[in-house]
């Protein structure tokens, strides 16, 4: 009896595993196809029938770097993203701490943060463009960094605040009565405790800035366009070089996928701004 129910269970598990292999293969097909396109000769992609089995090549990557100059886009993306992430975390962490532990209210600021988070980017696109023009900051790293920092601060404060809230308030109260200043409590006690959450927030901001498209479209032309913007270049190009597009898509999407995997434990909390744990 016992063995047969155990075999039954194993069989069921095996069947569901098989089912998931098929479902995942179908569901992820667009992604797989994208990756394959990057490693396949362009003519094989648009030939009919499409080649599922082909001789892999790095021609797309070669074209991408030697003809398209894609390294410039990747470097721009890396610079803008890394600088933005550092600034966002640096500015948001103290605010998140203060709103979690020091202030009992701070209600107006919390509502302002939520509204700032929810307002669609395109709603400030035109004035941001006009102001950047007036300040002669079009097509610069600074402009992209400033706007990306501002756009991500509300999210970062809100999420980090939820991590700070997990620290029990008596810890801070004890430290304060022992004579610690608020800044010491923040740097010496709180930061080490929420380091994981802070890293997770940094990764989410990284993904957000790395994927950002609209402000790059509005604010940049030739000097500081980022990698997502290169996709638009491919689109308007006559006679698309699909192997290069596939290679570019692979290079742009891989870092964010890897980061998401690393941070999977925090994904739910991050995606819902801390409202689901």
């Amino acid at each position: 009896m016992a063995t047969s129910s155990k075999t039954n269970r194993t069989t069921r598990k095996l069947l569901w595993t098989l089912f998931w292999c098929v479902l995942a293969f179908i569901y992820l097909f667009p992604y797989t196809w994208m990756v394959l396109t990057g490693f396949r000769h362009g003519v094989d992609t648009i030939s009919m029938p499409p080649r599922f089995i082909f001789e892999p090549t790095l021609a797309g990557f070669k074209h991408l770097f030697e003809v398209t100059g894609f390294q410039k886009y990747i470097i721009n993306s890396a610079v803008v993203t890394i600088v933005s992430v550092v600034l966002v975390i640096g500015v948001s962490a103290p605010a998140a701490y203060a709103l979690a532990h020091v202030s009992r209210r701070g209600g107006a600021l919390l509502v302002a943060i939520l509204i700032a988070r929810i307002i669609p980017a395109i709603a400030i696109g035109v004035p941001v463009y006009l102001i950047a023009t007036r300040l002669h900051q079009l097509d610069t790293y600074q402009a992209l960094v400033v706007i990306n920092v501002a756009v991500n601060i509300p999210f970062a404060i809100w999420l980090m605040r939820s991590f700070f809230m997990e620290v029990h308030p008596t810890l801070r109260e004890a430290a304060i009565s022992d004579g610690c200043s608020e800044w010491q409590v923040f740097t010496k006690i709180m930061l080490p405790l929420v380091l994981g959450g802070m890293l997770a927030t940094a990764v989410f901001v990284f993904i957000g800035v790395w994927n950002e498209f609209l402000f790059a479209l509005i604010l940049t032309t030739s000097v500081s366009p980022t990698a997502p913007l290169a996709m638009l270049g491919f689109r308007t190009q006559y006679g698309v070089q699909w192997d290069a597009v596939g290679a570019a898509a692979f290079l742009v999407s891989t870092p964010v996928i890897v980061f998401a995997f690393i941070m999977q434990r925090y994904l739910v909390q991050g995606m819902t701004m801390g409202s689901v744990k």
Partner: protein
Amino acid sequence: MTISQTVPRDGIAVRRHRRIRISTVVWFTLPAAAIMALVLGVPLVYSFYYSLTGWSLVVPGSDQDFIGLLNYTDILRSSEFWASIRVTLIYAVVAVSLECALGILFAVLLNLEFFGRGLFRSLMLIPMVITPAVVGIFWKLLYEQDSGVFNYLLGTLGFEPVPWLSLTVALASVIIMDVWQSTPFFTLIILAGLQSLDRDTVSAAQADGANALQVFRYLTLPHLVPYIMIAAAFRIIGVMADFDKIFLLTLGGPGNVTTTLSVYAYNTGFKVFDIGRTTAISWIYVVFVLAISAPLIWRLFRGASVNRH
């Protein structure tokens, strides 16, 4: 847990603490608040001012042209605007409903027992994080009518090729693309809900003779409702602001069948260069989105004020 807050302190200490508190809160939040005010607040105010002018970049001197609410009344009377509202609403309602349904299904399936469950849970997240601009350009390749792989696969199954990016089908194609990318978001959150479901309650119900369907209908689903609501609320806000994917796939076309509010605002600003009008659209857009997301803002805010230790 809340002892430290309820133990009364002597008046002097409380007053001293409060004064310190106010100034630290200000110093700790000032940099972030200042950046938000300058970089997000100022443009919004600017844009409200521009929306009352007839400023067009192609008409010199028109930025001084103060025309009151004319832009707003014009927009509310234009058929293009209402067409974009219609597209946005169809896109939002259909995409989010499908994502909800598929998300529940995938979450339940991922919650079963099978080998490599963790791996599949990870793999199914991939679409969610791919750069939207990349998704847009790539689905354009998949959707190509003559050389696209979708039509090839349909052909091998014996179906006629579908004109994916044509007048009649394009909006559906945009929705399918978004369902593909955003269903994992629902799966992720609903799966978190499933994992927090108390197993003992389920076993008790089963012991009382409830079948799988009854357990799902009367135990699992009610438990999942708040998770579904949160996911849907976040996704609705996301859908409202969606731009990159649609822009890369269709540029809002053909005609204006996939021109959502965001694409419409972009085109008015950066193709027609009508500043007065596009800022007015932006303001209508902001009010529209805030009205729709008010319940979520309220929920998040209330949650934030109560979930202390």
